[in-house]
């Protein structure tokens, strides 16, 4: 409950802090919320169940494209598009997950990387003229709610925050459930789980599919809530984005849902911070150093605070 409160405060802090250029910071915070949903979903898989996924951007992208294709190419109600954005990635995850969850360690990393690369390449290749190739899909309509159109920064932010809170509560209760204990047991001692006669692969597959569905839902939200109203493969499905999602989970804390939110916050706001910093430190282009800093922060976190910024128990990590 305390953590939920922190989450809500975080999501609305920019409203108070940056009144000067609120629109910009609010939309940045909306993007943070969307990333946080993916980070939470990935945390179920990576942090709690101990299964690496280098294809979460693929699920995110499939969700975004499902929503965009339904609402633009087929002119369906955007809400149907948003629903499909969860369903399609879950279906794909179920299909590819059956053989994938059997793999371990670097074989799993390689297979999920392969899925990620293939989805990205297929979206770029414009199959059946559906995805618009590298340019993507434009003029995506807005969602509507009880006569209101969700087409401005505040309404989009409220929608994303509402979904984020719902996803947070859902995942928190999942972790506290019996199945949540099973997930953590799959991570800690897979052999013990098998020896109890529990189907290890079925458990992994369930988490994989659920995680893909939530990542896809976040993709659908991105599709309707990005201020530019368009999506392209590089923005929603690149392998680099999958890595960013992993960075969020690892920096924030891989055994804490709030950690994923904090990680999303750090990763999304780091470029802003660097830009501010470059006003004082005359470096070349601050964007050039973004990736260097990412790398250094990532490695330093893993070496010096392997559990991330937020500890599982709730206490802040020291140092």
């Amino acid at each position, binding site marked *: 409950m305390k953590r939920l409160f922190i989450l809500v405060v975080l999501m609305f802090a920019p409203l108070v802090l940056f009144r000067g250029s609120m629109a910009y910071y609010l939309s940045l915070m909306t993007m943070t919320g969307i990333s946080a949903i993916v980070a939470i979903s990935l945390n179920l898989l*990576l942090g709690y169940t101990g299964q690496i996924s280098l294809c979460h951007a693929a699920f995110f992208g499939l969700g975004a494209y499902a929503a965009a294709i339904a609402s633009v190419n087929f002119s369906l109600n955007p809400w149907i598009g948003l629903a499909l954005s969860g369903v399609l990635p879950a279906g794909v995850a179920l299909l590819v997950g059956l053989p994938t969850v059997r793999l371990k360690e670097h074989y799993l990393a390689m297979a999920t990387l*392969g899925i990620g*690369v293939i989805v990205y390449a297929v979206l770029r290749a414009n199959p059946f003229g559906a995805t618009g190739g590298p340019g993507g899909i434009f003029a995506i309509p807005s969602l509507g709610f009880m006569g209101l159109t969700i087409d401005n920064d505040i309404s989009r932010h409220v929608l994303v925050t509402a979904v984020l809170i719902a996803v947070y509560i859902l995942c928190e209760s999942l972790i506290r459930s019996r199945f949540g204990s099973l997930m953590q047991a799959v991570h800690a001692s897979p052999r013990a789980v098998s020896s109890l006669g529990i189907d290890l692969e079925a458990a992994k597959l369930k988490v994989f599919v659920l995680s893909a569905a939530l990542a896809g839902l976040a993709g659908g939200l991105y599709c309707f809530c990005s201020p530019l109203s368009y999506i392209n493969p590089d923005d929603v499905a690149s392998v680099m984005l999958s890595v960013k999602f992993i960075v969020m989970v690892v920096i924030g804390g891989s055994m804490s849902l709030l950690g994923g939110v904090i990680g999303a916050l750090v990763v999304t706001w780091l470029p802003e911070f660097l830009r501010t910093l470059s006003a004082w430190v005359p470096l070349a282009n601050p964007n050039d150093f*973004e990736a260097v800093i990412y790398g250094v922060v990532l490695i330093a976190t*893993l*070496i010096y605070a392997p559990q991330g910024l937020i500890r599982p128990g709730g206490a802040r990590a020291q140092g």
Partner: protein
Amino acid sequence: MSALLQYLLTGIGIGTLYALIAAGFCLTYNTSGIINFAQGEFVMMGGMLAVWLHQFQGLPLAISMVLAIGLTALAGMAVERLAIRPARGSGFTTLIIITIGVSFILKALVGVVTKDEFQLPALPGPTAISIMGATITVQTLWILGLGAAIVLALGLFLKYTLLGTTLRAMAEDRQAIRNLGVESQALPILAFALSAAIGAAAGVLITPLTQMSWLKGTELGLKGFCAAVLGGMGSLPGAVLGGLVIGIAETCGSAVLSGYKEVIAFALVLVILYTRPQGLLGGRL
């Protein structure tokens, strides 16, 4: 017929480079059990450093290439010392993510210096040789010859020298080596230096064929990774076979299914992982 032969020859040329990159993967995997996602960046660094030395410092081509390989080997040592060793004993996922972080840093450091694309001049010899209607460039012949020599030398080194045997033993049982009184701090550094050098060799050999830039490493590294998994992670002959299969499949496949070139290598890998996860020639070196 000659068109098919042409695809085959081009595929073998590019496949040899993938095989070299895969051999670098095998080396770090076999000696420290690490999947080094930064391997592709060593390839890129090799190419870029050779360009810098040859075109901007005016050194002769051959010396630039050797120096570039040496400098990249130093970078490999630094990576082991600064990023991998402090995290020793961490889980598999942690180490993978650390190497991904390393690849960010290496790539971005080169990107800070230049974002342009460069090409090296081809190695000396007649421009092209015609075989049964298909042409093979001299650069491809150099790649075949030098690639085969490097892989062979690596294989012999690991199999027949004391140092090579020790490196392989380290992967099997680090504690046992320590009990035998071998100072094992230096061995992982050596493995990373060698693996970076092999990657850089692939980089200097590919740069006359295609444009090299700061972004190219990831793609090349992934292809090498595909080759390593396809052949059987940790198997040197497997890496060679995997590299050739992917090189040929990619050149032939992209002729049939243009636009899906990037998919071919990974589709092959998924098929192998799902049916025969130990790879075509699974096992150790």
